[in-house]
């Protein structure tokens, strides 16, 4: 399954790109599992995902907790806690 990943704020800076299309490996079924897999993709990813407490996620533009299943997702985003307003 192919999915678009998007990164914002310091997650984007650490990963070094704003978005990418990836092929989900078999066995990666949840948002948290995807973060584990991404963290193993290289130094910049490991740095971006080193402290999960400070990473928030959205599937198809809706906030989701890490245990959420990613089956059927078209776009998954990772970003720090929000500081708008």
């Amino acid at each position, binding site marked *: 399954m192919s999915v678009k990943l*998007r990164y*914002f*704020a*310091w997650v984007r800076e650490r990963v070094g790109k704003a978005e990418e299309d990836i092929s989900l490996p078999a066995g990666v079924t949840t948002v948290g599992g995807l973060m584990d897999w991404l963290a193993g993709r290289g130094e910049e990813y490991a740095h971006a995902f080193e402290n999960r407490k400070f990473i928030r996620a*959205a599937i198809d*533009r*809706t*906030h989701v907790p890490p245990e959420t299943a990613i089956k059927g997702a078209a776009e998954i*985003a990772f*970003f*720090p*806690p*929000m*500081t*708008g*307003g």
Partner: protein
Amino acid sequence: MKSTVRLQREPFDAALEAALLKRGRSDVGAVVTFTGVCRGNEANEPIAALTLEHYPGMAEAEIERHAAEAMRRWPLLGLTVIHRFGRIEPGDDIVLVVTASSHRQAAFAAADFLMDYLKTRAPFWKQVERKDGTSWIEAKQADDAAAERWQEPAARRDAVE
């Protein structure tokens, strides 16, 4: 009931937006206008500017969800939310919430609710620009606590009654 949500790079006119909400109607008895402004200091250090990054598409959707929630909870006659993005200098406006109702309580409460949720749920991130570089503003616990006040789980309502 008129509800407007806009994200824009350009400045907004708070007085004009407030006037638009009551124009041509006589049932509005209260208009609350909140404007969030860029301070010249962050953590006691002078700053040159803030740059607001946002998640296009999701930011609008998230604000519209909370605007709909505000309309469900309070008897509003009009609601406008404008959030700017891009580079904003000290003294310039960042965010506008205008609520109109027949009476003040609903207008105050809805504006307060919307600001608390904008702070913690709308996908915006503030980067501080100083003379010697940039850094990201960290989310504040106090903002999370402020947003939690508005949660209405059945358990808590039962406990209060």
